[in-house]
């Protein structure tokens, strides 16, 4: 059967490496595209994340009854609590979709390095986070009468979201294998993201209070290191996390 096709073809090491990298990137792109296309149709994940995020902001608005001065000091904390809670919903749903229809097996059967699955899922999760953040920020500005259109703040949100999604996607892949995945993910995730939340809140708060970037470099560096470390860790361990 199929004797015209050799089972093993010999390429130079450089060509093989280049072709593996192209296959890897193609798989990452395919997974991210698939998630975004499916979400564009169903809008299940984004709508639940958005509604939840807006409810959290509203509840804080009524619960804290802040004066104008105090409001500016808690803005960063309220924003990051909102992002973290809404993000957990998205991470859980994103992996549950794969597990419920058995599609995780379909992905694992593909002849690509399994870290491609991680990066594909992480990119789509990050896109969903950014969409939610892009809607939450103006809503928060209106409700709390605060100007959040600050480049420094937006940079911190980007860095913080990368760290959150890097570790969240990995832990969601672990939690989805269990029956108690909805409960397990926040229990696993929140202790691990404490450094990223602290650094993001401190840096965001500093930018909102008009501090210079140089004064906030400690927190920004911590965010960058966290992002790099957790992306690297996920790259190394994802194969073992998803294997039976």
């Amino acid at each position, binding site marked *: 059967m199929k004797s015209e096709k050799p*089972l093993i073809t010999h390429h130079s090491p450089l060509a093989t490496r280049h072709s593996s990298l192209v296959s890897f990137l193609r798989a990452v792109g395919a997974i991210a*595209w*698939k998630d975004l*296309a499916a979400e564009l149709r169903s809008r299940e994940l984004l709508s639940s994340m958005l509604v939840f995020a807006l409810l959290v902001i509203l509840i804080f608005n009524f619960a804290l009854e802040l004066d104008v001065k105090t409001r500016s000091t808690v803005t960063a904390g309220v924003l990051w609590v909102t992002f973290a809670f809404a993000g957990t919903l998205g991470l859980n749903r994103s992996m549950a979709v794969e597990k419920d*229809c*058995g*599609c995780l*097996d379909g992905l694992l059967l593909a*002849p690509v390095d399994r870290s491609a699955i991680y990066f594909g899922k992480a990119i789509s999760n990050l896109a969903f986070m950014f969409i939610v953040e892009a809607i939450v920020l103006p809503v928060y500005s209106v409700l709390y009468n605060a100007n959040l259109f600050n480049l420094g703040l937006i940079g911190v949100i980007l860095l913080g979201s990368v760290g959150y999604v890097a570790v969240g996607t990995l832990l969601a892949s672990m939690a989805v294998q269990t029956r108690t995945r909805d409960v397990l993910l926040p229990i696993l995730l929140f202790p691990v993201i404490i450094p990223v939340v602290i650094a993001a809140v401190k840096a965001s708060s500093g930018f909102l209070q008009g501090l210079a970037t140089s004064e906030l470099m400690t927190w920004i560096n911590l965010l960058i290191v966290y992002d790099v470390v957790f992306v690297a860790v996920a790259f190394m361990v994802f194969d073992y996390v998803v294997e039976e």
Partner: protein
Amino acid sequence: MIEVRKLVKRFGLKTVLCGLDFQVQEGEFVALLGPNGAGKTTFLRILASLSRPSLGEIRIAGYALPAQAAAVRRRLGVVSHMPLLYGDLTAEENLRFFGRMYDVEHLDQRISEVLELVGLAARRRDLVRTFSRGMQQRLAIGRAVLHDPEVMLFDEPHTGLDQDACDMLDKVLRDVAARGRTVVMTSHDLARVEDLASRFDVLSRGVIAASASRQSLGKNNVLAFYRQALQEK
């Protein structure tokens, strides 16, 4: 094409496969029979590189598992009782996605061919969640053959299908076999596999308890062979 030696699989203290030996020649269609809990699905998941063996040697198309799993996966097509498809994507989008994952060349042309093969060309732009169970299973076969694999693994593909859908599935299975693919299929439906398979293996208590070719068994003897194999074990 498939060579398995002394395969052991343990889940904690429970041993599901106990030193299983199994060989399949190129182009053979093997029906793997056995009662519930015999380890058929576990065995197929190990062959598909979805689960690691505890002990033993496995080679598929010359590549060792789990060391060369990616090379093995490129040569495998897997159909289980779950379709492994995305309901919010169309039939065509599902195939396009898996085609990109497998680096399939001339993807547009290949998608059209596969949709024709499984009889879903007219529904290519419909969402998979609007499909019946039978149509989803046919598309699942399309997904599995899209990259033209040398070895096909079917894990009880008839589960949950009505008579018409089973007949349609059998037609596709015959077509896959006629194209010279090596096939391993688990099933409880002896009458159905009798017409499809060229060899029957009975898996019981973690080992292959009996094996016979269709030629040696003759017609309508698979049930008797199966019962005898279980009794002897």
